[in-house]
């Protein structure tokens, strides 16, 4: 994976605190494994077909199956999950889930306690950028991971800017490392 950890949207400079680059998908898999309670937030862009690839939402479902990560589907993304026969996603406004993840007393979707790792994919780049920033600055004990194809500097960890094929391959590797298929 050769790729630059520069914000995908050129002007979205960030820092001094910037996301660590996930140089290998194995790392992301390990982080998910290590997490006590993780959650995956999936935006509506994951329902669109990226060039030369399927829909990212399929990876979300496979991640859920492989690692048992609960899914929050923002906006109308849930419709696509349901269409694919995946019924367990929770619909929530992206800001609402961001705001809850920030709150260390939030008991989570299942009422069992706060999350320690939140993964994001499929939100518009700049929107994910600011939500990750909100979490970076105001959450306590939460790590965030951006799984999008673009380096998103406000996350704790982020993929770098990737070619579609490398990105897909990352998901495949991650999922297999997590014991999924």
């Amino acid at each position, binding site marked *: 994976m050769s790729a630059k950890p520069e914000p995908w*949207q*050129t002007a979205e400079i960030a820092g001094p605190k910037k996301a660590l680059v996930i140089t290998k998908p194995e790392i992301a898999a390990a982080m998910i494994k290590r997490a006590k309670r993780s959650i995956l937030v999936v935006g509506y862009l994951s329902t669109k077909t990226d060039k030369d690839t399927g829909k990212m939402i399929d990876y979300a479902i496979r991640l859920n199956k492989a690692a048992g990560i609960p899914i929050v589907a923002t906006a109308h993304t*849930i419709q696509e999950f349901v269409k694919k026969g995946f019924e367990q996603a929770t619909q929530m406004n*992206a800001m609402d889930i961001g705001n809850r993840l920030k709150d260390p007393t939030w008991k989570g979707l299942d009422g069992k306690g706060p999350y320690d790792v939140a993964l994001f994919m499929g939100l518009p780049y700049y929107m994910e950028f*600011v939500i990750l920033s909100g979490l970076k600055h105001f959450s306590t004990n939460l790590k965030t991971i951006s799984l999008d194809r673009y380096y998103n500097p406000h996350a704790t960890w982020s993929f770098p800017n990737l070619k579609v094929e490398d990105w897909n391959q990352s998901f495949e590797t991650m999922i297999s490392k997590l014991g999924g298929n």
Partner: protein
Amino acid sequence: MVKKGLVVKAKELKTDVALVKNLELSIGKIIDDTWDEPMGPTPFPSMTDLRDWDFKLLQRYKPFYLPYCDVCCLCTFGKCDLSGDKRGACGLNMAAQQSRIVLLACCIGAATHIAHGRHLIDHLIEKYGRRIPLDSGGLNIDVEAPVTRLVVGVKPETLQDLEEVLDWCEEQVTSCLSSAHTGQEGNNIDFESKAFHVGMADQVGMEVADLAQISVLNLPKADPEAPLVELGFGVADVKKPTILVIGHNVPSSVGIIDYLTKKKMLGKVEVVGICCTAHDLTRYEPSAKIVGPISWQLKYIRSGLADLIVVDEQCIRADTLEEAQKVKTPVIASSPKNCLGLKNRTNDLAKELVDDLVEAKVPGVLILDPDKAGEVAVEAAIAVAPKRKRFNIIPDLEAIKAAGEACGGCNECIRACPNNQPIPEAMKAAALGDLDPLATILGECVGCARCDSACPKDFSLHSFMIKAGEEKLWEEKFMMRSGRGSISDVEIRNVGGPIVLGEIPGVIAIVGCSNYPEGGEAVAEIAEEFAKRRFIVVLSGCAAMSVATVKDEEGKSLYEKYPGGFEAGGILNVGSCVSNSHIAGAAIKIASIFAKRNLRANYEEIADYIHNRVGAVGLAWGAYSQKAAAIASGFWRLGVPVVVGPHGSKYRRMLLGRADKKEDWYVYDARTGDRVYVGPAPEHLFTTAESKEEAIVMLMKLCMRPNDTTKGRSMKLTHYIDSHKRYFGVMPDDVHLFIRNKMDIPITMKPEILKILEEKGWKETRIPDPTLLKRMIRKRG
């Protein structure tokens, strides 16, 4: 009215009618008793007078801050890194800094409307005298200037009465802005309260400005049947000389129309407008035409269609002069706020100015007299047109193809594009002669030209798109209802009850700019969804224009299909940005006319009323500006929720309720004093919708209010559940929070919902006479 004391002291007073010598008149207080409504608690409120109310709202709707970066760079103690729990050199933390950024944006926005009002009113007073009566709706409006009455406690009757209102507005902008100085306010919630305060002043400033122009320039007066006007890229007759006006402050455009009328040339010269000046231009003269919102500027200029451009103020591209020069179009700047570095030629002879422009001795001139600007614009446009011959800089197909071949695929353009448009791929296609992808991009493009700037090969990419989309562009010709101004008392009387009882399911105000994520059609779709469901849909500014740009099979725009009245199923264009005040005004008038509450300087009570009873929600789908921030802020203080489109997330602060925290959703029952759980209604005060589908469903939900009758609530729930199922494919998982008793349940969904209620362990609650204000309790519990 009790305000500043007043001393008139002069050796000699010259008035229109008399000369008075050695007058000294000293007045401690002026008590104006011509208005018999008693004075409420907060006339001319200071920055802290409504702070308790703000804290109530902000306790429920807590800020979620979304910093752009980790630092503050507002003073030379900095930059300071505020990440983690760090504080800046002044002791500030990140939450306070972000709220300060929100305050700054709201101050800039409010200052813009207020300074606009000041300029306009100074001009109108100078031209027409100060005693012109205010009239925004003839006999149909008794409650004129509801916002001003409510906020400052003044009932303005003539133009000059607006001046002291503006004095107050300017004082508020100054104080609020001063709080943003390093080492002033240190608490984020207090910053938020100040942002609300200046947002409230902004509503007053907008109302004052629109009231003045409606009254003096005789714009449509609360007219549901305001004329239909033409809008679109293709509206102008290219055989006529064309003047393009851009901006918001109409005097110079009026100057153009008046000069044309005087010279009997109306119709011989095309006058077309972009942005709010276009709204106000067509409110003044319906034969004028509208090109579109701010995102149309480059398309129009580069296409060479304007023979002369007049800019006034606000939302004008900063590179107008440079772009105009490329197509040999002279520019007249006409506002002190936007002088573009041009020489001030206000005092030169019109003839000299025309000559200099026509002979291109100068790229443009600054003319601060609107009437002279009008004359020069017309004469110069007529003389320039035959010389320019629509000279344009849109490249031909060959040039685009060659660029496509030369494009290195470096991605700089897409990385600069706010909407992540796949320009590199489109360039590959162009290399093969296929311009369709470029044309497609134009549909989602906001016309910012950042791609042009970013391209290391200096391709004029936005022009490529214009070329690719040319045919469709030229066909663009739509009908928009021109801005009607305020809502009449009669209309309020008719719908006040149904709205407050929840039987008209909501008032949806679609406002703001054209910074859309995926094109403007979404706005029309959203508007129609609500009109069909018999909500009231109120529009303004760029959003009102975008709604016009979708036609049905018969070629009709929504304005032609739906009524223009403030009624169920109505689609109303109130007008330009400053007309936004009529939306707040309508909500306020419901409290006054329908509920007979006193308005005068009675802000808190009325905001509490609106928040708990009036199912109004704002949507600023393409909001980009500081003005939009100020407008939203004015709505927040009134307790009206606002939803923004994805780019609105960059305002860097949301105000979010927590539906899962039961304790947040109690109100007092004004009848008994009991605290009653009413559910998360409305759930948020400010949030971002990611997609138009989400916007629709979110707006439906946010229309619910504690005061809804069971009939009203069941209707609102029907719309919410129905749209949720349609757009999200599933039943919402929070219906149980909105059902107070079984009568609330939409009949057709009863079995399904009863099952949910059972699963959720739902319990019946009471429907109170809701208020957040202890003092409103009639009988203490």
